[in-house]
């Protein structure tokens, strides 16, 4: 009997010890604080970083590898003509305030996003929707005005998450979604706290609570990770410190790809860049690897067109614009600029642009092009470069997923106007079979590569520094998200 009691006592101690040592909370740092907590009302990526998949979910969702899978819609039927999508919603899904998520909420969310007075930053995602009809509480039918092969992809964006009319008024400060974590508190300037949603419809996450902190200064970021104030820093801002973390057994460094095609944007309507020879010369004057090494400390994958290299449809076209300054000089001479010319290089604040800009300016100088650098803040950049198109060259990372379609818009800031490409994009939109889409996408990549629309530099990398015991963090960023639903601690 005594032995039995000892046994029970011992196992009780072992049990409590086990519980005590298993960590179930996490503190994640990201660089920028979200300006508000409404993923459907602003372009700031930080909003999605904190809330996407954790608090809010859409009809479909992105997985870590970039694939699109079922979200709040369990399944869907697409009509023969590709115009009607019938979504079958999951049953028993509730919002964090206890109200049921049903077809009315889906209709409300989609109608709100496409309404006249909508302030949705990606309103174009919803432009093709002509009607949303509630068939029954679990079924909603979306009618499109023309077939759209990327409709399910579009519905996975953070801007297309499902919200409820009951909680919409306070969404910016008190977000109520259907996700695996519910929002608790936001101490502005410092942190956002959330806790596990035990009523979640899917697999309940391993973490009980999560805190997001916002540390923008690279030195402070380094200190916070070293002092173990944070468990993970997603998008660590100081690449020069990464080798130090890699060598430290306390930490792991995950370096993956984002959807950010970093390009030297060229104003295609501004002489002399309206001449394809000049653009080709610029492309050959650039040494991508030197920029990746010099500006990004070696983190980044070279690209030869405007497409993410981890996408299965990516075509390697780097050979079209190999680093060849002699060829660049020859092309310039043929175009009538043997003595070179002077242009502007307007740089937004991120380090890829500021550091990369210096290197590109010196590379262009080698072939006789003088690029006068001016550093702009984002708001200024949007005004001068993006809106007024008052620039020769600029460096920007285009972070929206699958955004090759911007080359079909002649009013887009780099002003590429090619009817053949525009037609091709229309065909793409109307094509729903995967093989056909792949072929069109390959052709599209080739066209813009050979037209030397922009200088294609590299795919922006994202580095995450985390405690060695953390599992399940996303390596790549198919969309801006710090998805904690699959994250756990191993002991």
């Amino acid at each position, binding site marked *: 009997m005594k032995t039995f009691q000892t046994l029970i006592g011992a196992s009780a101690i072992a049990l409590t010890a086990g519980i005590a040592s298993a960590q179930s909370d996490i503190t994640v740092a990201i660089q920028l*604080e979200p*300006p*508000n907590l*409404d993923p459907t009302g*602003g*372009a*700031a990526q930080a909003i999605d970083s904190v809330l996407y998949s954790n608090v809010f979910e859409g009809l479909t969702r992105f997985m870590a590898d970039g694939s699109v899978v079922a979200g709040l819609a369990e399944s869907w039927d697409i009509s023969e003509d590709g115009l009607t999508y019938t979504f079958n919603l999951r049953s028993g899904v509730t919002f964090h305030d206890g109200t049921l998520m049903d077809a009315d909420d889906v209709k409300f969310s989609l109608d709100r996003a496409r309404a*006249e*007075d*909508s*302030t*949705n*930053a*990606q*309103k*174009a995602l919803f432009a093709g929707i002509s009607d949303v009809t509630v068939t029954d509480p679990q079924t909603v039918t979306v009618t499109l005005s023309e077939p759209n092969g990327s409709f399910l992809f579009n519905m996975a964006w953070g801007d297309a998450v499902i919200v409820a009319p009951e909680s919409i008024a306070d969404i*910016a*400060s008190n977000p109520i979604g259907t996700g695996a974590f519910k929002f608790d508190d936001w*101490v*502005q*300037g*410092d*942190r956002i706290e959330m806790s596990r949603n035990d009523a979640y419809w899917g697999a309940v996450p391993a973490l009980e609570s999560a805190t997001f*902190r*916002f*540390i*923008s*200064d690279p*030195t*402070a970021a380094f*200190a*916070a990770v*070293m*002092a173990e*104030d944070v468990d993970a820093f997603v998008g660590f801002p100081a690449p020069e410190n990464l080798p130090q973390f890699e060598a430290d057994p306390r930490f792991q460094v995950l370096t993956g790809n984002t959807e950010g095609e970093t390009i030297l944007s060229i104003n295609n309507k501004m002489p002399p860049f309206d001449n394809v020879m000049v653009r080709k010369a610029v492309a050959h004057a650039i040494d991508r690897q030197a920029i990746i090494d010099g500006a990004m400390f070696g983190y980044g994958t070279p690209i030869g067109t405007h497409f993410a290299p981890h996408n299965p449809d990516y075509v390697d076209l780097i050979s079209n614009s190999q680093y060849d300054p002699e060829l660049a000089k020859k092309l310039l001479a043929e175009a009538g600029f043997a003595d070179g010319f002077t242009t502007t290089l307007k740089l937004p*604040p991120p380090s890829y642009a500021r550091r990369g800009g210096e290197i590109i300016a010196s590379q262009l100088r080698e072939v006789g092009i003088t690029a006068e650098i001016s550093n702009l*803040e*984002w*708001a*200024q950049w*949007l*005004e*001068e470069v*993006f*809106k007024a198109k008052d620039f020769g060259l600029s460096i920007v990372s285009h972070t*929206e997923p699958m955004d090759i379609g911007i080359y079909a818009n002649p009013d887009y*800031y780099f002003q590429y106007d090619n009817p053949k490409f525009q037609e091709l994009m229309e065909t793409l939109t109307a094509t729903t079979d995967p093989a056909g889409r792949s072929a069109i996408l390959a052709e599209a990549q080739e066209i813009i590569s050979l037209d030397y629309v922009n200088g294609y530099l590299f795919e922006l990398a994202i580095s995450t520094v985390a405690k060695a015991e953390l599992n399940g963090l996303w390596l790549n960023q198919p969309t801006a998200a710090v998805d904690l639903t699959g994250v756990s601690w191993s002991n």
Partner: protein
Amino acid sequence: MIRYALSRLISLTLSLIVASMVIFAVIEVIPGDPASFMLGVNAREDTLAALRAEMGLDQPLHVRYVDWVWGMLRGDFGNSWTYKTPVADMIADRVWVSLPLALYALILSTLLAFPAGIYAASRRGRIGDTAVMSATQLGVAIPNFWFAMIMVLIFAINLRWFSAGGFPGWDRGFWGGMKALTLPAISLALPQAAILARVMRSSLLDMLGEDFIRTARAKGLSKRQALWRHAVRNALIPVLTIIGLQFSFLLAGGIIIEQVFFLPGLGRLIFQAISARDLIVVESVVMLLVFVVIVVNFAVDLAYAAVDPRLRTQA
């Protein structure tokens, strides 16, 4: 005394009016459309127009200025464009970090500077004086953000006595809050203490050369007694001026230190609001800081009069 206070009050009001106009004008001419910043590169023109109307940006400039001033007079600072919450609430939250931090730093700096300055003056030319002066020289020369980083390296990363930054909030305990503010307060205080100690010393030395000190000495007071009874009080006027300026600097100038320690204070709020073109927040916070600086200067002016009876009859 009353006339003196009144004239100060009138100049205070005029300063505030001029400041509000300058702040509004300067911030409005900064290039960059807040709406396109918020909605990003894929926003459509009709979406932008809808947002501008929502933020009141379609109103003419003078109407917005009058609305802004009238709102502030009633304590209504409007709603932040990006955060979509009342600016007054945001400021109220942040003040409870910035104000304690500034006071904490000011107290530390005064506690260090007074003894150091008085000691150096009383030991003029001797080894103690040289030691204090060299130390303050160093204190003035070291930039506070660099000093802050070194302290983080030693006390947060190596010794783990403090966390590297952040602020838990006063609702989670007073001492936790104080602990989080300690490294930032020290970083802010040391350079200020160095300046203050030098001013204290030179002001005292000036006094020690005055006739009334010689008279006091002739009366039979020791050098030390003359210093404590007569010189220190008279040396306080320039020191008070410096303290007034320093408080304003500590409150408004914590921007860099708040970045280094990622503290949710007013400085960080301005920093974020400027880069997000949240103009209404920038205008209101800057106006508030101007208000505080002007009121502190007003208080310092009144304090002069308390220390120096001659000022009460002048002006």
